[in-house]
């Protein structure tokens, strides 16, 4: 009989007691975790791939921030603390678990951004199954010869940003310039606090490095930002007559053009594409007056579940109703949330 070696799982009493305490605290959330898994409230199907990509993106984002922070501290401010140097040079992620345990990653804006990025990867994969990367880039490159110099420059900037993002099928990583500034601002300070705790380095220079990191962030470099600018310029040029399409425009510009016309955000539209049958995206297209042929083409390009949008079901949607619904979705999200909660929890008082 093979002799088994138990030394690897041997724990001393102190370690076991520590873990017991931790599990005692965390197991209190067991039912809420199970509840969320069994009874999801959103109606969105979170596939294993999407969850995996989300985790990967979040870890990548935190890893990039802690690494950049420590490099700034070392290279720009002369910090020589060994742990800071190590974090700056390492490809490991140090702060993620600390931030997660402290509940600092459980922020709705942050999680929405993470989900949207993972969903965009999903959508890009779907497009690439139907069209080649070259075809998708050629459409954007056609704007490089635009007679309006500003349009040409904005198209070039978007192309550069997309290429820098270094997207590869099956991989997701975070490029910090794509993180919205408000999220980035909060996360940098959270990571700074975590790095200070992990390293034991309490030098004010670490905070100064965080300020440097924030001041160096350039929102204009983000893909969404550049796509929005190009969409705005095209909307004033002759291209406003053309229908936005993920194949003709590429995913980012398509979302930005629809967002501009519908007054919705790119994040909202990306979430719509993750919903069953992309129902809300279809309603938005109807509200924008996109013909059934174009709407079906857009739907087919973005769909990944073999669903079909028929001309009859598209035309069945009342355009007036679609406009009202789209208009409602464009209201501030805090207002929409409050409206929903008030409607469900506080029935109207009679008289």
């Amino acid at each position, binding site marked *: 009989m093979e002799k088994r070696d138990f030394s690897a799982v041997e724990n001393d009493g102190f370690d076991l007691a520590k873990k017991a305490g931790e599990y005692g605290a965390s197991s209190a959330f067991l039912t809420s975790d199970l509840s969320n898994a069994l009874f999801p409230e959103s109606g969105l199907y979170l596939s294993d791939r999407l969850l995996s990509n989300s985790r990967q993106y979040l870890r990548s984002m935190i890893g990039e921030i802690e690494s950049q922070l420590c490099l700034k501290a070392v290279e720009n401010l002369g910090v020589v603390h060994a742990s800071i140097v190590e974090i700056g040079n390492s490809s490991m992620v140090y702060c993620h678990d600390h931030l997660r345990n402290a509940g600092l990653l459980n922020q709705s804006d942050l999680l929405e951004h993470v989900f949207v990025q993972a969903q965009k990867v999903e959508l890009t994969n779907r497009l690439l199954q139907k069209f080649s990367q070259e075809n998708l880039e050629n459409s954007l490159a056609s704007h490089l010869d635009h007679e*309006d*110099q*500003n349009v040409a420059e904005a198209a070039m900037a978007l192309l550069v940003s997309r290429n820098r993002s270094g997207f590869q099928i099956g991989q997701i990583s975070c490029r910090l310039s794509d993180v919205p*500034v*408000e999220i*980035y*601002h909060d996360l940098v300070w959270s990571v700074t606090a975590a790095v200070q705790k992990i390293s034991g380095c309490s030098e004010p220079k670490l905070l100064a490095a965080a*300020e440097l990191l*924030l*001041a160096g*962030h*350039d*929102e*204009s470099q983000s893909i969404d*930002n550049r796509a*929005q*600018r190009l969409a*705005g*310029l095209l909307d*004033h040029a002759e291209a406003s007559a053309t229908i936005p399409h993920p194949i003709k425009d590429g995913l980012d510009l398509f979302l930005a053009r629809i967002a501009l016309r519908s007054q919705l955000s790119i994040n909202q539209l990306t979430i719509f594409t993750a919903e069953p049958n992309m129902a809300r995206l279809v309603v938005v297209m109807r509200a924008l007056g996109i013909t059934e042929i174009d709407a079906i083409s857009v739907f087919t390009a973005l769909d990944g579940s073999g669903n079909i949008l028929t001309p009859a079901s598209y035309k069945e949607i009342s355009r007036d109703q679609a406009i009202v619904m789209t208009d409602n979705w464009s209201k501030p999200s805090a207002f929409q949330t409050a409206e929903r909660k008030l409607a469900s929890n506080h029935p109207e008082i009679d008289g």
Partner: protein
Amino acid sequence: MSSAHNLAEPIKGRLDVDGRLVSADPLLLRLHLHSGGFEGGPLAIPQLANLCRLSKKLGMNLSRPVKAADDDNNLNLWVETRIEPDSDGGLSISIVDWKETPLSRNYNNDEQRQRDFDRLNARGMIRTDTALRITSISLPGKVRLSEHSIGSALLDVFAVVKPSKPTLFTESIAERQPVRNHHVSLLLDPDSKYILSGQPLVDNLGVYSGYRFSVEKLNDESSDSGNSESTKPSLISDSLFGAQLGPALRQPLGKIIANAETIGSQLEGPLRGDYASYAKDIAAAGRHLMDLVNDLSDLEAIERPEFTVAPDEIDLIDLAHRASGLLTVKAADHQIRVDLPDEDSEMPALGEFRRVLQILVNLLGNAIRYSPDGSVIKIRVDRNGDRAEISVSDQGDGIPEEDQHKIFEKFERLGRSGDGGSGLGLFISRRLAKAMDGSLSVKSAKGKGATFTLSLPLRTKKGSE
């Protein structure tokens, strides 16, 4: 219908640590001035200021679309902010895209505000459709044409008369050009003559949708001076300002003010700071003279024995809101809040709509002029027996008791000068109030603000009381 400034180079600006615009390229400076700002003052373009505040709060560079408006255009800008690490809290602005789209003028509030201005200046208004058929009309004076003229072609109701030329008028309309100062008369009543000026209208899609004309009553003696001089010599001397000097002065004064404002705002390009300042002084002096001309015309009118007012059925609360609407910009310039009665309530009274509005604009304008910046002006209504009263209270320096009777005298300024007043406003307002069987009084104490109260006959609602 949109246009883009050719931004070979981004438009630049710079804010200091306190958010003051310390340098700006001409386009940005123009927008800042049009938004109520002044050179070296806090950035006055709200959307841009918000972006800069966020950038400074986060300590991060932002790059976002910004929507603003200037005169008749919506502006779609793409703005980048840059934190200046070496400038101790300064921030630079770079506008990389600048797109202009004509502003829709079909807002109800704008229409109502324009109508109020027209009524305040004794002007009427005519709206037409694309075929020049009248869709709405209100004429100064007692002529009520609406029932008959709505739907009629403009030139079936009015005839272009000398010295204006009918062909010039129709050609301008055909070419969708603005028309100015055309003399017309009513076909049904050729003695009723008016001056017609109009602008073509465009709808939300930028399509021509008709004309909006303003209509001013033309006195016989000014329209046909040759005849009237011989037949009505006394009226000419009686109406020196209303009929002759007033119109003769208003036009050149209007041009002086407009040109001085253009120079002062540096719309045509940058200018030495002291020259721009002189131009603003010229514009201010021009506006003062224009107010004086208007006041003298009014003074002359109310001192005529035949001066009468119309007993319109008015609502003092509605008029308070209209007067406040006309002075919104002036109050905002001084961060003054006007506290108004609830718009849904009513205080019915009898008095000529235009004249009561004129009195309220005068009272509210004075209150703004003599109140400290950031203060509150309260307008309240009350019923006192068979009188309806409206009061305007400010938080200014107040008026000593011994001076309170003087302020209603002609040209009495209580030693103040250089604040834009003519010393005629309260005199005219009290005379107008009396002509409407009302009164205008003041209660004040030095250092405790002043409350002016207009009292008018209460209008009893039919069937309710």
